[in-house]
C-alpha cells in the first residue's frame, strides 16, 4: 500500500481499502499501518467508545493535514518546475510545521521564478547581441566586398597608367634620337662652314695677288667668309640648345622611372587590399560571412 505522488497533486493509492473502517482499536491500528505505508485514503469511523472515538478523530485530523500537504506540495513544486509560477502554496489552513513547509516551498518557488526571469532576460539580451553581431558582420561583409572591388578597379586604372607611361617613354626616346640627329647635322654644317671659310680666305689672298683684276672677286670671297662665320656661330647656338634639350630629356626619363616605381607600389598595395578584403581564403568579406553563419548557428 504505497503512495506515489503523480502530476498535479494526484495521489496514487496502491490497493485502496475502504475509505472509512468501522470504529474500534483494530480499525485505528489498521488505518495507522496504512498511513505508515503511505496510504492516506483511509480514515477511521466514529466509535461508541468515547476514548476510541477521540483517538480516531485525532488520527483523521492528522491524516487530513498530511493528505492535503502531500497533494498540494507535489502540485506546487510540479507547477514551479513547469514555469507555472502563479501557482503558490496557500499557507492558510495548515498548522505548524506544515505551514513552515508550505512557506519553504513558496520561497523555493520565488527563487525558481527569479532564476527563470533572469534566464529569460539573459536570453533576450543574448538574442539582441546576436542580432547586432549578425548585422555588423553583414555590413562588414558588404563593405569589404565593395572595398575589394574598388581595389580591383584601382589595379585596372594603375595598369592603364603604366601603359600610358610606356608611350611617354617612347616619345622621350624619339625626342632624344631626333636631338642626336640634329647634333650630327650641326656638326656636318660646322665642318662645311669651316672649310668654306678656309676656301674664302684662300680666295681673298688669291684676289689680292691678282691686283686690280681680282678686286671684285676679293669682295665676294670676303662676303662668303663672313657668311660662313655666321653659319658657324648659329650652328654653335643650335648645338648648345640641342645639348640642353638632351639634358631635359634625360631628366624627364628619370622622373618617368620614378613615377613608374610609385605606380608599381600602388599596384602592390591595391593587390594587397583586394585580397585582404575580398572573398578569397582569409579575406575579410569571407571571414565576415563565415562569422555571420557561425553566429546564426549559435543563435538557433
Amino acid at each position, binding site marked *: 500500500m*504505497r503512495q*506515489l505522488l*503523480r*502530476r*498535479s*497533486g*494526484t*495521489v*496514487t*493509492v*496502491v*490497493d*485502496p481499502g475502504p*475509505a*472509512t473502517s468501522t470504529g474500534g482499536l483494530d480499525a485505528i491500528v489498521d488505518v495507522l499501518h496504512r498511513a505508515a505505508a503511505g496510504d492516506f*485514503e483511509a*480514515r477511521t469511523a*466514529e466509535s461508541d467508545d468515547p476514548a476510541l472515538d477521540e483517538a480516531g*478523530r485525532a488520527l*483523521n*485530523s492528522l491524516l*487530513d*493535514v498530511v*493528505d*492535503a500537504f502531500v*497533494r*498540494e506540495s507535489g*502540485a506546487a513544486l510540479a507547477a514551479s518546475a513547469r514555469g*507555472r509560477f*502563479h*501557482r*503558490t502554496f*496557500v*499557507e*492558510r*489552513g*495548515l*498548522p505548524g510545521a506544515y505551514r513552515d513547509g508550505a*512557506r519553504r516551498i*513558496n520561497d523555493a518557488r520565488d527563487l525558481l521564478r527569479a532564476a527563470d526571469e533572469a534566464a529569460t532576460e539573459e536570453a533576450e539580451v543574448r538574442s539582441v547581441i546576436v542580432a547586432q553581431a549578425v548585422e555588423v558582420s553583414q555590413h562588414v561583409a558588404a563593405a569589404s566586398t565593395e572595398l575589394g572591388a574598388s581595389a580591383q578597379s584601382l589595379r585596372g586604372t594603375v595598369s592603364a597608367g603604366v601603359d600610358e607611361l610606356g608611350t611617354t617613354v617612347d616619345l622621350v626616346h624619339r625626342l632624344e634620337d631626333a636631338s642626336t640627329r640634329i647634333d650630327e647635322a650641326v656638326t656636318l654644317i660646322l665642318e662645311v662652314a669651316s672649310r668654306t671659310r678656309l676656301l674664302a680666305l684662300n680666295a681673298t689672298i688669291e684676289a689680292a695677288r691678282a691686283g686690280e683684276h681680282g678686286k671684285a672677286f676679293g669682295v665676294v670671297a670676303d662676303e662668303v667668309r663672313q657668311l660662313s662665320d655666321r653659319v658657324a656661330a648659329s650652328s654653335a647656338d643650335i648645338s648648345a640648345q640641342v645639348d640642353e634639350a638632351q639634358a631635359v630629356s634625360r631628366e624627364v626619363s628619370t622622373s618617368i622611372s620614378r613615377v613608374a616605381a610609385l605606380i608599381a607600389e600602388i599596384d602592390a598595395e591595391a593587390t594587397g587590399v583586394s585580397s585582404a578584403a575580398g572573398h578569397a581564403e582569409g579575406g575579410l568579406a569571407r571571414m565576415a560571412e563565415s562569422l555571420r553563419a557561425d553566429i546564426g548557428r549559435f543563435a538557433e
Partner: protein
Amino acid sequence: MRPPAARPTSQERTFAREEIIVSKTDLRGHLTYANDVFVRVSGYTRRELLGRPHSLIRHPDMPRAVFRTLWDTVQSGDEIFAYVKNLAADGSFYWVLAHVTPSTDAHGVPVGYHSNRRLPEPAAIRAVEPVYALLLAEEQRHPTGNAAVDASSALLRDWLDERRTTYDEWVWSVINAHEGGAR
C-alpha cells in the same frame, strides 16, 4: 434518512482560518468521507452525508459552468482551485476556496476524488461573485440544464479569452491578489 432540500437564506456561516474542510468522493462524486469540520459547518450529520452526492450542499447561486470546469479538470488528472458557495442544511451559506484532486491507483486509474477547503478572504469573494452572477444570469436564460451549462461555459471561455487568460491563471490571480495573508 434523506434530509429535505434546504431553502437558501441570507445567513452566512464561517469556520476558523486555521481549519480545513475535507471530503473524499467516489468516481461519481458521492461522499465517502467528510471530516469533522465538514460535518460541523454543513450542518448535516455524518450519516446524512456519506453515500450522498456532493451536490447535496450545492448552492443555487453557483453557476454550473464552474462545476463543469471542475469535473473536466479533475477527470483529466489535474488539480483545480475554485471559489465555491455552499449550502448548509439550515439554508445558510458558506464560501470556501476548494482544492480538488483525483486519487489514482498504482496504474494511474482514478479511484476517487479529494477536496480540502480553506476559508477565503471577503475581498476574494467580492472579486469572484460578479463573474459567477454573470454566468448564472446566462444559465437562467436557457430552459434545460444542458443548454444552460453549454451557454455559460461558452460565456466563461469568451470572458477569459477577452482577458487573455485561462481559468487557472484567473483563479490564481484572485488568490494571489486577495489571499495575501495566506503567504
